């Protein structure tokens, strides 16, 4: 049942680092995080790994395994061949702190920039009435465990550091969609989605959806519907034509 697996784990910090080779015991039913814990206990006690629930519910142990953004606790060793080298690196979109731990503060900064839920005036607690059909869409987005793998894989910021300023990333564009589809929210974030949070930078290449461990259809259910709502507001050619003509006249 057990075998000796070959691991390459990135070790280092912001000043530099390299992939370190390990040979380590792997047992039946284990996930990559189990093996990293074994490395900590037996070979590398100071190997930095961020983790928490080890059940795919908290979204702490995000990293990249063989180049793909994944949760360490939800990647079973059985998907690899016994002689396959498993390479584990930190997420490559965020600044590294140490080993597999990255500084994900970008995400918390973006979270603060999205206007919060705004309840309707005059509705007391306990008086909220919403149909299941009305909350279903936002509930899907609220399954998000904030592992930030979608933020990590999104090429808009992964490949272009300079876009971090102007792009909230799939997680927080989805948060906007969630609030816009909330049946009782009264704020308007449609224009801001485009102007301040960078919705237009998304080119719907769906990597966020591909990596989501919760299986949320981020692109189809959140980002594209938001693009359509922006189009309602902003890119209706007839409205645009009218506006252009009136501007010419001024």
């Amino acid at each position, binding site marked *: 049942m057990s075998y000796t697996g070959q691991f390459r784990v990135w070790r280092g910090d912001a000043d530099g680092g390299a992939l370190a080779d390990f040979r380590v015991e792997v047992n039946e039913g284990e996930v990559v995080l189990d093996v990293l814990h074994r490395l900590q206990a037996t070979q590398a*006690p100071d190997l930095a790994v961020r983790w*928490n629930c*080890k059940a795919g*519910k908290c979204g702490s142990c995000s990293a990249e395994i063989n180049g793909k953004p994944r949760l360490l606790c939800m990647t079973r060793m059985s998907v690899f061949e016994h002689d396959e080298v498993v390479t584990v690196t930190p997420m490559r979109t965020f600044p590294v702190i140490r080993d597999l731990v990255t500084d994900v503060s970008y995400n918390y900064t973006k979270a603060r920039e999205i206007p919060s839920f705004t309840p309707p005036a005059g509705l007391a607690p306990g008086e*909220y009435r919403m149909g*299941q059909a009305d909350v279903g869409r936002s*509930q899907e987005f*609220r399954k998000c465990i904030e592992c930030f793998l979608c933020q990590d894989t999104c090429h808009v910021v992964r490949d272009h550091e300079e876009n971090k300023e102007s792009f909230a990333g799939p997680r927080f564009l989805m948060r906007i969609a969630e*609030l816009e589809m909330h049946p009782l929210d009264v704020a308007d974030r449609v224009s801001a989605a485009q102007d301040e949070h960078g919705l237009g930078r998304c080119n719907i290449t769906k990597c966020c959806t591909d990596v989501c461990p919760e299986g949320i259809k981020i692109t189809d259910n959140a980002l594209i519907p938001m693009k359509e709502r922006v189009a309602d507001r902003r890119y209706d050619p007839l409205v645009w034509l009218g506006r252009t003509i009136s501007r010419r006249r001024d």
Partner: protein
Amino acid sequence: MTDTERHEYDVLVIGAGGAGLRAAIEAAEHGLRTAIVCKSLFGKAHTVMAEGGCAAAMGNVNENDSWQVHFRDTMRGGKFLNNWRMAELHAKEAPDRVWELETYGALFDRTKDGRISQRHFGGHSYARLAHVGDRTGLELIRTLQQRIVALQQEDYAETGDYEARLRVFAECTVTELLTEGGAIAGALGYWRESGRLLVFSAPAVVLATGGIGKSFQVTSNSWEYTGDGHALALRAGAELIDMEFVQFHPTGMVWPPSVKGILVTEGVRGDGGVLKNADGKRFMFDYVPAVFKGQYAESEEEADRWYADQENNRRTPDLLPRDEVARAINTEVKEGRGSPHGGVYLDIASRMKPEEIKRRLPSMYHQFKELADVDITAEPMEVGPTCHYVMGGIHVDPDTGQSRVPGLFAAGECAGGMHGSNRLGGNSLSDLLVFGRRAGLGAADYVAGLGRRPVVRDAEIDAAAEMTLAPFAPTAPGVASENPYTLHAELQRMMNDLVGIIRTEAEMAAALDRLGELRERLHDVVVEGHRQYNPGWHLALDLRNMLMVSEAVAASALMRTESRGGHTREDHPGLDPQWRHRVLRSRCPRGPGDDAVVPRVVVEPAERVPMREDLLALFDVAELEKYYTTPELAGHPAGHSAGSPQGGTA
């Protein structure tokens, strides 16, 4: 220590789960400068793991529900050991706390008429749990997290600084509380990221650090659950109560080994799943204890009818309180009727359509598919007991959450009393909200009424800092150093084997001996590497707390010579009414010559405060007689042994 980072706040909340965040919201809304310290990233606390729901007698699904029924259920579930005032406040205030979440943006599952839907759970008379599929805890923590952000946005609009009044210190661990003249003055902690120390000056500290499960090998708890709040409170002079009561959730995963202990929500049974042994028998019908006789279905037919018609049928014994179900599973396995991997079967596949299972229990489906390669819509799950919750905790005033130490408050799992000897499922999330808010309020009132703020003294900072950095110091020449991971693994195995579900005097005494050894060995732990994000160091510090708390659990368990709720003594199998009115208090006397790393804990019995008469009158006296001694029932209006009027249970 001149270069230590310093921060000054009115209220310091330690822990960013449901209770901590709710406390912080309350303190901040009262205009206090509030800091939240969380061991993990913001929004990752153990509350996310809660699945089934949040109990609140809103009466949306069954309008017969009321706070009185909820109160009775809670007291019954805790075998009448609960702090009745807490149970009362909890039952009365839970609906308001849930509705309040909606104003923060929470989206619970709905009833047909658009109200919050509620589901059945073990020990609750009516469908009472507000829920979102099987990820209610995630909804709760995200909602509170987003409420914190909303408050920060208000501050930003006003001051231009998001953190002007409310700041989250993420990946920051408090290692010691600082006091002056016995009152809270602040706390010392370290940043995980850099390993740098930081000092908080704050006259009020709210502990909301959760539980102690990481001292056990098979547990549903995350790594953070190292009993930090319990241990910090002990070292600061507060008392713990009821530490012998540890809840083993009946249904944790048992296979594969690497996921052993991960929770399988009670919602599976609430929605129709049943427990079966290796012979395919629904064994729970054989395990209805005397105190619950007559309240549960006696045949499979009646139990199945109950799902559709709850007025005319009694509920299935699969939904007995958790302690009963965990013991039953334990017995089935011990007597050779278990599943191949040492559990029993939890079957929902044969009772519900696959699409319905996926809709109602999406994360369970996902969890088994991903981690165990089991399709729960086609085959039964293998489940067994897993360490889930500690009923015991910091002894606090029910109304304000304040401990014996002025300025030290506690809420949530790390506070004790609310759940008695056994917590009902769903009562944890409501506990967090009700008492999180009360602790925040208590802290706000305390700070407002404070004449002079206690001052953090440099000598105390130095001592706490030295203790925090001690694991880097090499051992004395000739002494072999210890590995923190090895020590932790030994502690977990020992606690699982000796202080688990079924306990004996000899095992408990052995556990205390082993804890003594481990305490000595902890002195020789040396961590490799430097202070920057060093998990070995973090574990070495957490071990201090785990060892203290484990001692409180084992010593309390040794003293209580009866079986009740989350404490089962093989050598004292029955309920003993003489133990009902007694509470075991753990404290840390801190005398000269005491071990500074892991100070000794002493446990002493004390009397519980008798229940207020109007609350006592909510129960049928015949039921109370099963738990109470005769003289204690003198105050019951029905008098003692006066027939048995219907107690109002369904």
